[in-house]
């Protein structure tokens, strides 16, 4: 079990650092269209911020904030968003993942953004849940 890290420096730095890492991760997810990045890269950075907190403050501390149950729901929800967008296009008449049919102002761009968000959520939740599983070794 990764227990609390003694040195105060690490704890304070990681406490300060985490929100900015998460902010940057959201930026990377959202700006997948114009700048290099996208769902996967952003999701991994977001997951890394939680793992940073877990290493600095110990697993149990972060488990209260991000319980395993919520993690599993996040994992399934992200991919479900992806599949759901595909299904919406399918029900509206086009082929499975054809965003041109979506009733949105800029269908293709919005469709892709929705997918990037879904992928980002899944990758973040997967990274943290694999980290939980691999580190809880009795």
């Amino acid at each position, binding site marked *: 079990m990764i227990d609390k890290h003694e040195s105060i420096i690490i704890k304070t730095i990681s406490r300060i650092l985490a929100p900015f890492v998460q902010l940057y991760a959201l930026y990377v997810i959202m700006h997948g269209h*114009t*700048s*290099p990045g996208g769902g*996967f890269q952003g999701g991994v950075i977001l997951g890394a911020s939680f793992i940073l907190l877990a290493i600095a403050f110990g697993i149990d501390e972060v488990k209260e904030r991000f319980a395993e149950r919520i993690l599993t729901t996040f994992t399934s929800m992200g991919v479900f968003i992806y599949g759901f967008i595909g299904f919406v296009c399918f029900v509206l008449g086009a082929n499975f993942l054809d965003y041109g049919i979506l009733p949105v102002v800029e269908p293709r761009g919005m469709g892709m953004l929705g997918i990037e968000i879904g992928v980002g959520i899944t990758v973040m939740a997967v990274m943290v849940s*694999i980290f939980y*599983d*691999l580190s809880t*070794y009795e």
Partner: protein
Amino acid sequence: MLEFLVGKFNYYIYIFLMMIGFYAMMGKRNLVKKLIGMNIFQWSIILYFISIGAKKGGSIPIVEGLSGHGAHIVSHASQYVNPLPHVLMLTAIVVGVGTTGVALALLITIYKKYKTLEEDEILRKIK
């Protein structure tokens, strides 16, 4: 001969890396070393795919000069690097991460059961 070597050096690099990974996967006794060899093996193929897409004088595959919706910007194929291998390799990287994650989980259960990660000790314990 030199021209033959200089023009295609990137293929030799990926083949050399791949053979290191290939040998490590088979020859190494320790299971973690096998896993590291597997990673080298996977990543050398990713390196190969990316080197396919490279173009001399091509910039990164994002259309520049986009203020508003300047859809009139005409971009030529030789201006930009070939984006397809990059997309394929995003998938291969994710597959590599998935396989390594599952293999690490397996290693933990093996270590819990046999208290060792050396292959010959495990085989002795199995018999």
